[in-house]
């Protein structure tokens, strides 16, 4: 079983073993609007919790995607570079951004679970 956690910056991270798969939430994609460009980190890059990791741009604006955790990028999803609209159509699964090998799994503890994030988003309206 995998656990999914959420950040206040509207990223999700699904952890299996010591690797977390990161994407942006359905709420985030709906706020961004039509995604037209994605820039992903290089495999092997070290990222830090809350630090810049990727860029997503809609017709309207550019946004940073932050890494929810500290660690090393071990894979990226080139499919969303080729087809950025997937970020809008399947944000929670097919349009994952990158996989990161967790340096400190305890960073996950303070993050919101699915119910907590749903409540957080409700509070944003």
């Amino acid at each position, binding site marked *: 079983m995998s656990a999914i956690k959420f950040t206040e910056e509207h990223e999700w991270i699904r952890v299996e073993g010591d690797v977390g798969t990161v994407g942006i939430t359905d709420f985030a994609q709906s706020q961004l*609007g*039509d995604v*037209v*460009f994605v820039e992903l980190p290089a495999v092997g890059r070290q990222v830090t919790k809350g630090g810049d990791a990727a860029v997503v*741009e809609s*017709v*309207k604006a550019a946004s940073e995607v932050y890494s929810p955790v500290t660690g090393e990028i071990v894979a990226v999803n080139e499919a969303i570079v080729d087809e950025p609209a997937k970020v809008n159509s399947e944000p929670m699964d097919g349009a994952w951004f990158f996989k990161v090998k967790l340096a400190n799994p305890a960073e996950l503890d303070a993050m919101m679970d699915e119910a907590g994030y749903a409540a957080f988003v409700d509070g944003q309206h």
Partner: protein
Amino acid sequence: MTTSGLHETPLHALHLELGGRMVEFAGYAMPVQYPTGILTEHQHTRAAAGLFDVSHMGQIRISGPDAAAVLETLVPGDIKGLAPGRQRYTLLTNEEAGILDDLMVTNAGDHLFVVVNAGCKHDDLAHLQARIGDRVTIEPQFDRALLALQGPAAAAVLQRLAPEIAGQGFMTGRAVAVDGVPCFVTRSGYTGEDGFEIAIPAEHGEGIARRLLAEPEVKPIGLGARDSLRLEAGLCLYGHDIDTTTTPIEAGLNWVIGKRRRAEGGYPGAAVVADQIANGTTRRRVGILPEGRQPAREGTSLTDAAGNPVGTITSGGFGPSFGGPVAMGYVETAHAGDGTPLQAVVRGQPRPARVAPMPFVPHRYYRP
């Protein structure tokens, strides 16, 4: 003004009903997009017809025996030469030839019908009143509704409600009954497509909007797509691509200076404009195409191939019809030639780009 502190257009309730995502723009609550999103709205406008609420813009009537000659003291356009029913794009300039606003002027017969930008309308009105208010009658109509119907199906749609507009050419305007309501209709717009702007008594704005939206070709379009459409069309956005720090010549708007006005002058900043026409400018507004897929947005620095700063992007984004990033901005004249390689510094990284002719998507205006 409402409890949100924002002004609302006569179509406000309709925007909410249609699911418009409302944002602040020039003090108004305006829809940036509807649920289908900017990309779909943009493409729909180029394929069929889009309806835009532009009621936040300022409508002003200027009348009096010498209204055209008097307005010419504030703008470089040939207004005296504007035949009844003809419309022209012009500029309000200051003494340094900076641009105070860009505007549309139509000779409506017994008055000039002027449309100015929302964010400038109160300053424009004060400027007009201070400079020419003793010689002409100036009537702001800021409460009226203004709808833009744009796209290749716009004419067919509007003819169902206003048969008289058939054959009306690009950049003309006339008083026309639309669905029985007395309106002033110009064939113009801000998308590069054929289309109309319909000035409507406030109380009939929503009714005509609903009537137009009931036509199968028409969808509501927000400010987001309005911006991407005008950018592809190479049209300036006031406050971004032109402002008081840019002159008409730097902006590449030489064509707005009427031939007679070039010789005669007689508007604020005319000497500066004449000098720049004769001797050139140190910078120019140009189209810019970033290579690849990444947009280069407003404020992005431009350098030459060696990395020396040569300019700045003033509008940039993704062009849905163009199918890639498009931008415009100011560059030093030595780097303004079509095809000149540049670099756009996006998030600290230089990315290849080049100067390119505008529009990025061909205009499709109706010229019978």
